[in-house]
């Protein structure tokens, strides 16, 4: 002992009471194994979560991108004057009397001459050949003629939509095996499609009508678009923004800055936090009972949808607005009060502008949530309505029946023809692009204007 202490600074040589630190005892090994297992569970849990995200996104992208492309057939149609304008005086009313049915022979003969020109050998009858085209083709032709009556008598080149089965075949969704029991298309027709494709007149191309166009009936999935319901969503968002933002901000200012500590304030606060968690379908029931059955507002109107979504979004906006008001330090209020401003002036001149970025962020997130909401729209009739025409004018935009993006997607998912499923996924891509954009703006706003006090 003494010899050690006589050389202070030398390494201590005293033996440890228990085992050396350098050797792990069995128990420690076991505990460390448990530790790494536990950590693995955590990594696995995150992995599963992220995997699900990847699967979901991949699924959406692979299943939905097809909707942005459509198969077209290029044909030169001879707009025969003797068929379209028998009187020959180009009177638009007379031209309108020719129904879409009257345009069918024009397309059939155009197809026949195209086949002859390309030298394609096929056993199909002219009628069966024509069936590879969409039922929308005749209407498209008629609309063109009515819009351009001067073109009658000339030969005009058109790009017609093909039937959804042909489109599915071009995209690989439909195969020769899968159509065994399908009455709407035959193997011969697919062979014919192959020949047309090899000749270069039948091809896939970007389809702007999916984004901008209107919904189509059950028979014509190839013609369906999400544009009109996008307008419906847009009008709903106007309503939500115009109502939820001012009401939400006013309510938050009251609760955060002026509310006395009393029973009423407590009730309001508990109410708001509970409303935020009420199932959205309940808001739909409220909308149906109050706005439609009681107030007799028009069914399926974006105005009603907007009102329902406003009530649903209000709690979100109030909660985030209150948080941003709370983040403004009391010293700002004291400073304003100290120079003789009234409390109201302090709030409106100083606190509110400082909280504005946070309020805006919360509002955008609330709007994004409202944009994707479907369940309440089911009950106020925005699903099941075929949004086939864009609203004419702003008032009609709010009041005339329309669909909304998520409602349109749900509508497509219910239809029998699987070609609509591709539309539904495509619609989801568009919806998600909107949501991602809105959330990105919110994040940028938050980063850009976030203040640390």
């Amino acid at each position, binding site marked *: 002992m003494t010899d050690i202490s006589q050389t202070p600074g030398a390494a201590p040589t005293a033996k440890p009471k228990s085992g050396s630190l350098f050797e792990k005892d069995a128990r420690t090994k076991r*505990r460390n194994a*448990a*530790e790494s297992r*536990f*950590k693995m569970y*955590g*990594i696995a*849990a*995150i992995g599963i*979560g992220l995997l*699900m*995200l990847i699967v*979901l996104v991949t*699924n959406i992208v692979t*299943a939905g991108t097809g909707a942005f492309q459509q198969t077209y057939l290029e044909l030169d149609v001879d707009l025969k004057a003797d068929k379209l304008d028998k009187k020959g005086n180009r009177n638009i009313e007379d031209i309108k009397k020719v129904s879409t049915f009257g345009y069918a022979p024009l397309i059939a003969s155009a197809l026949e001459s195209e086949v002859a020109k390309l030298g394609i050998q096929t056993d199909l009858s002219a009628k069966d050949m024509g069936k590879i085209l969409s039922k929308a083709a005749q209407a498209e032709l008629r609309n063109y003629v009515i819009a351009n009556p001067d073109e009658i008598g000339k030969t005009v080149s058109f790009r017609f939509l093909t039937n959804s089965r042909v489109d599915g075949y071009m995209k690989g969704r439909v195969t020769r095996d899968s159509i065994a029991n399908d009455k709407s298309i035959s193997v011969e027709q697919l062979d014919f499609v192959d020949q047309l494709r090899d000749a270069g007149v039948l091809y896939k191309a970007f389809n702007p009508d999916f984004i901008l166009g209107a919904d189509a009936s059950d028979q014509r999935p190839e013609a369906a678009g999400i544009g009109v319901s996008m307008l419906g969503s847009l009008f709903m968002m106007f309503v939500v923004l115009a109502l939820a933002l001012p*009401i939400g901000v*006013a*309510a938050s*200012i*009251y609760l955060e800055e*002026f*509310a006395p500590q009393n029973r009423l304030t407590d009730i*309001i606060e*508990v*109410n*708001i*936090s*509970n*409303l935020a*968690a*009420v*199932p*959205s*379908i*309940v*808001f739909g*029931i409220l909308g149906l*009972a*109050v706005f439609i059955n*009681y107030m007799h507002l028009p069914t399926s109107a974006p105005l009603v949808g907007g009102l329902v979504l406003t009530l649903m979004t*209000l709690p979100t906006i109030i909660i985030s607005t209150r948080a941003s008001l709370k983040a403004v330090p009391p010293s700002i209020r004291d400073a304003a009060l100290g120079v003789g401003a*009234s409390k109201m002036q302090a709030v409106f001149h100083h606190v509110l502008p400082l909280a504005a970025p946070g309020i805006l962020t919360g509002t955008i997130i609330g709007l*994004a949530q409202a*944009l*994707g*909401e*479907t*369940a309440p729209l*089911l*009950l106020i*009739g925005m699903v099941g309505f075929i949004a086939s025409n864009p609203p004419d004018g702003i008032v009609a935009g709010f009041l005339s029946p329309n669909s909304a993006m*998520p409602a349109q997607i749900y509508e497509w*998912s219910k239809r029998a023809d699987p070609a609509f*499923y591709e539309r*539904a996924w495509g619609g*989801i891509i568009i*919806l*998600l692009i909107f*949501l991602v954009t809105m*959330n990105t703006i919110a994040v940028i706003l938050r980063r850009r204007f976030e203040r640390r006090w």
Partner: protein
Amino acid sequence: MALSWLLLILLALAVIGYFAGRSRSLASVGGDTRDLHSLPSYYGYNVALTALVPALGVLIIWLLVQPMIVNSTVSGLIPDQAIPEGSDRGLVMSEVRRVAYGLEGAVTSGAMTETQAQDGSADIETLTKTLKDSGQVLTQDITQPILVAAQKFRSMTSTGKVAMQVVVLALALLGAAFAYVRTHKEFRARNVVEQGVLALLLLAASIAILTTVGIVLSMLFETMNFFQLHSWKDFFFGSTWAPNFRGGSELSILPLLWGTLYISVIALLVAVPIGLFAAIYLSEYASGATRSIAKPLLEILAGIPTIVYGLFALLTVGPALVSMFGHGGTLGISWMASSNAVLTAGLVMGIMLIPFVSSLSDDIINAVPQSMRDGSLGLGATHSETVRSVILPAALPGIVGAVLLAASRAIGETMIVVMAAGAIAKFSGNPFEAMTTITTRIVSQLTGDTDFASPETLVAFALGLTLFIITLGLNIFALYIVRKYREQYE
């Protein structure tokens, strides 16, 4: 005069009032603003608000109350014998409204003169023809009582409208005049305006309460109507859900509740372990960089609309499960007949709830003070021992609250179950079978051609009310637990 014009006039009045009040206040001090009690603009706001706010308030109340009065008066005019067999007063009333709107439309479009429209003894057939020719929609044949009621409806509505316009405009003018006269340099305009603004702020805050009251009342009335038509015993204690629009339905909530709870339990079995472990890893192990990437990525799952999950369940997960468990599937067992199943909906809902559970638990775990971790690590506990024996027990109440909130989400979730759970109400323990839920039935009973007098439709309100009460109870309880938990560490 349309409503929009009335609103525009009110706005114009307010703007004029603003400038008039402002200039009067300036005039009262000869242009020297220092002698004014408040800034000149406050005198302007005072006039504008006094003109606008009471008028708008009356307008809104009038718009809400008038249809109620008109409806009840007109509905009293319809004799009982005028109500056809199998119909009821409500249906006849909607026909009355339709005829009234038709008459209005016909007069506006010039297809009918005002006198013709008001002629109570008009020939029904010619009238019907005139209406149809002018493009008005009529679903039933017009009968004499309906016509009389419709004419009464129309005259009451238009009288009411005129009266409303007169009252609202008069109120606005009076308000403006009153405030204008009061405008004087001694008048405490700022205090008055601020009181007014405060009242408006309070009104905005009360909308939350109004919404709740609206939800409860709207469902309560219809639920009471339902219980007059259908036995409450069958609703709460029956065992079968078999709506039949020809009558004799059995409408019990129990099978629906079973389906709802079964799917929710599966969803929680997926979401709680994954969400909780993810939260533990993120808050206890992950480095700052990992956390800042993984956490927002996981939260994307929470921002995806439920329609997307619904479609995912319907078109991807369902068919994938069938190809495993279905007839001729990879596992060689044919347990699953259709892609609509409890398991499909439960799994997808579970995925949706992962970020919900994980971010709530993350917050709660982070609220456990660092000194707890130090204490445990300082004793030589490993990190996982610290988490299991110190942090989780400390955070347990909060985590229970989070799970309850997730359960309330699962119970109220609509789109996923509407698209993937199926429509068959039954008590079964087999997760591969299709079952139905409360929300699914609310949607199906209230969409399509609905007759608001039949128990088959009204049951949706009783279901909605039950759903509201269940989720509200869960939420209040969960929020209470979480709040208590937070207070403990503050």
